[in-house]
C-alpha cells in the first residue's frame, strides 16, 4: 500500500502513532480507525522486558503483550497483518543485537515495514551506527534516527547528513511522562542543525496545543503513543472508544495542519 517512500510522507505534516505489536488492546479496529482518520505512520514496538526509555503506560503495554504470549515472530506477524500507508518498527538496539540486527531487518522487511528505529543506538551503541546504516541500505530502508535534546550538536548535524527518512526527537526523558521542558526552544535549536531533514517530535504529547507548539517550533510532525494507549486501554465500549479515537485524532490533525 506504500505509494511513496517513508520520507515522501513528509510532503505534508505527519502524524505518527506508536503502538505495541501484540498488546491485546491493539485490536485491528483500533488500527483501522486510526488509519482511516489520518494517521500517517504507524510505529510498532516489539515487546521487550527492558523498555529503557518508556514510561509506565508503554511499559504496561509491553508487559501485556509479553504476558499474552507475544514472541518476536508473533509481533512481526501482527505487524504484517495490517496494510497501512507507512509502518516502521521500533525496538531497542540492545534487544536487536541480542536477536541479530539482520534478522530484525529481514523480519521488518517481510512485515512490510519501511524502516527500523532503534532509540538507544546513538546513545549507548554509537559505535554500531555504521552497521545500522549499512544494513538499512542493504534492506532498502531509509535510516531513522532517534535523538534527544541532550544530543551533541555535531552528532545531530552528522546524522542529518546521512539522509534519514526522518529524525525522531524525544522531547521528554521518557515516553508519556510530561516534564516542564520548554520544548519549543529545544525543537528550534535541533531544527536549525538538521536543515531540511524531516523532524518528528514525540514523548508525552497528548494535546493539540502541544502539537501546535511543536509545529510552530519547526517540527514536521508529531508522534503520539501513550495518549492513544491510555485511550484504548481505559475500558469502555468499542463504539465509544472508536468515537473517542476519531475525535482525538481529528483534533490532533487539525492542530498539525494549522497554518504557522
Amino acid at each position, binding site marked *: 500500500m506504500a505509494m511513496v517512500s517513508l520520507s515522501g510522507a513528509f510532503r505534508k505534516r505527519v502524524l505518527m502513532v506508536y503502538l505495541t505489536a501484540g498488546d491485546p488492546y491493539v485490536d485491528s479496529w483500533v488500527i483501522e480507525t486510526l488509519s482511516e482518520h489520518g494517521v500517517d505512520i504507524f510505529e510498532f514496538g516489539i515487546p521487550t*522486558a*527492558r*523498555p*529503557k*526509555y518508556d*514510561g*509506565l503506560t508503554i*511499559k*504496561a503495554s509491553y*508487559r501485556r503483550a509479553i504476558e499474552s504470549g507475544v514472541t518476536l515472530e508473533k509481533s512481526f506477524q501482527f505487524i504484517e497483518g495490517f496494510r497501512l500507508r507507512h509502518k516502521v518498527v521500533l525496538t531497542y538496539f540492545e534487544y536487536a543485537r541480542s536477536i541479530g540486527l539482520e534478522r530484525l531487518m529481514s523480519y521488518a522487511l517481510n512485515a512490510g515495514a519501511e524502516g527500523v528505529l532503534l532509540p538507544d543506538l*546513538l*546513545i*549507548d551503541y*554509537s559505535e554500531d551506527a555504521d552497521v545500522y546504516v549499512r544494513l538499512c541500505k542493504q534492506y532498502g530502508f531509509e535510516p531513522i534516527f532517534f*535523538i*534527544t*535534546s*541532550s*544530543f*551533541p*550538536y*555535531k*552528532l545531530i548535524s552528522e546524522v542529518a547528513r546521512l539522509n534519514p527518512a526522518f529524525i525522531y526527537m*524525544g522531547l*521528554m*526523558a*521518557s515516553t508519556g*511522562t*510530561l*516534564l*516542564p*521542558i*520548554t520544548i519549543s*526552544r*529545544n525543537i528550534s*535549536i*535541533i531544527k536549525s542543525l538538521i536543515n531540511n531533514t524531516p523532524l518528528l517530535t514525540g514523548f508525552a504529547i497528548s494535546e493539540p496545543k502541544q502539537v501546535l507548539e511543536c509545529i510552530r517550533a519547526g517540527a514536521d510532525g508529531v508522534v503520539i503513543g501513550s495518549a492513544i494507549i491510555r485511550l484504548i486501554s481505559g475500558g469502555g465500549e468499542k463504539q465509544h472508544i472508536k468515537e473517542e479515537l476519531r475525535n482525538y485524532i481529528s483534533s490532533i490533525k487539525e492542530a498539525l495542519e494549522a497554518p504557522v
Partner: protein
Amino acid sequence: MNILPSHWYNIVPDLPKPLPPPRDPEDDYIFSRIELLPKLFPSELLDQEFTAERYIQIPGEVLDAYRRIGRPTPLVRAVNLERLLNTPARIYFKREDLSPTGSHKINTALAQAYYAKKEGVQMLTTETSAGQWGSALACACAMFDIRCLVFMTRSSYIRKPYRRILMKLYGADVVPSPSDRTEIGRRLLMENQEHPGSLGIAISEAVETCMKDGSAKYAVGSVMNFVLLHQTVIGLETMRQLEEIGEIPDVMIGCVGGGSNFSGFIFPFIGNRLKDGDFKNTEFIAVESKASPKMTEGSYIYEHGDTAGYLPMLKMYTVGRSYVPPPIHAAGLRYHAAAPILSLLIKEGLVKAVAYTQEEVLEAARVFARVEGIVPAPETAHAVKQAIVEAEHCRRRNLKKTIILCFSGHGLLDLSVFEEYGTY
C-alpha cells in the same frame, strides 16, 4: 573585562557523545521516578536539566546574589607552595572557599532558591550530613526569603553542632533525621528513638515532604545537570581570569564528590576544546577519595542518583548506591557516583581520575595551610594533594606547567578532622 559571566555554560550540546537520558528501573511498573521529578524540582530547573541550549542566561537576581556573596572569586597564585616545592610549575587556585558558607555549593543553592521563589514554592527541603550543602541552601533560602527544611542525619546533628547552628541562624528548620515530620521517620523512630540516620533516610524524608506538601520542593547539591550548569560560573570566571594574566592551563584539578565543583570548573575549558579545539594540551584531573573510588574502580552503569532510590537512574561511574564507604571525614566525597556528564567525559578519556587516601590528603592540606595560610576543606584537600603531586613531577622533569586547582571550600568547620587524624 567583566569577570562574572552573564550566562552559565551547558556543555551537553558539545559532548563527544549523547548524554544518556535518565531512566526508571525497568522492572518497576508502578512507580516512575521520572514522573516524580516535577513534584520534586522547580520547573525551570528541570527545563535546564534537559535544555538543548548552550548558554543559559543567569537571571539578574542571581547575578546580584552572586555579587553579594563575593563573586567573582579570586584566582590566586600559590607562590609560597611553589617555593616550598621548589617547582618550576606555576600553581593557581580558584577561591570558592570565600563564600559565606565556605564552599562552592552556594553557586547552585542561590539559583535553586531563586527559581523556587519565582515559581511560588514556599519551602525548599533537602538532606545533609556534614552540612556544607545544607548550610549553603539555608543561606540561599534566607537571601531569597523562602523557607528551608533540612533533614540532617542524627549522628551529624549531634556531632557537628556548628553546621547545625549555622543553618538555624539562617532561619532554616533543621531536624535530626529520622524525624517525626515524616511517616518513614516516625516508623524508624518507633524502632529506635536514637536512630543515627543515614543520607538515604534523610533523602526519603525530604522527598516524602515534597510529595505530601505541594508547595515544597526538593533541592539537590550535586550530580544533576542543572547543578553542574550553575557551577560553570567557576570555570567561566577562571577562564577570563587566566586570559587576563595570559596563562593557558596545562593541568586543571578538582575534587569529586558528586562532581559539581570540578565540572563547573572544567566544563568551559573542555567545551572550548570540543567545539573549537582550544586547550588541546590541557589535562583535566578529577580527584576522588579512596574511600569511595567510583571513578577509578567503579562501573559506568545506570544507577540511582540518590541512596534512597527516589531519583531516576543515571548513567554514571558508581560503586553502587548501597556501598557504605569507610568513615572518612571528607563527607562531601562519600557520594557513590560521579555526575553523568562528568562520567561520560571520563569514559571518553577527556578527564583522568585519581584517588587518594584521607591521610595523604590531610597531610597535603596541612602543607598548604602552612604556606598559603588557608585551610582547605577535607574535600578540597584532595585537589591540593594532586596539585602537589603534579608540581613535584614538574620539579623532577623541570617542566614549567601551569596548574590550576579548584579550591572548593575551606576547612574551618571541619578542623576536628585534622586532630582525629593527628595531622600536625
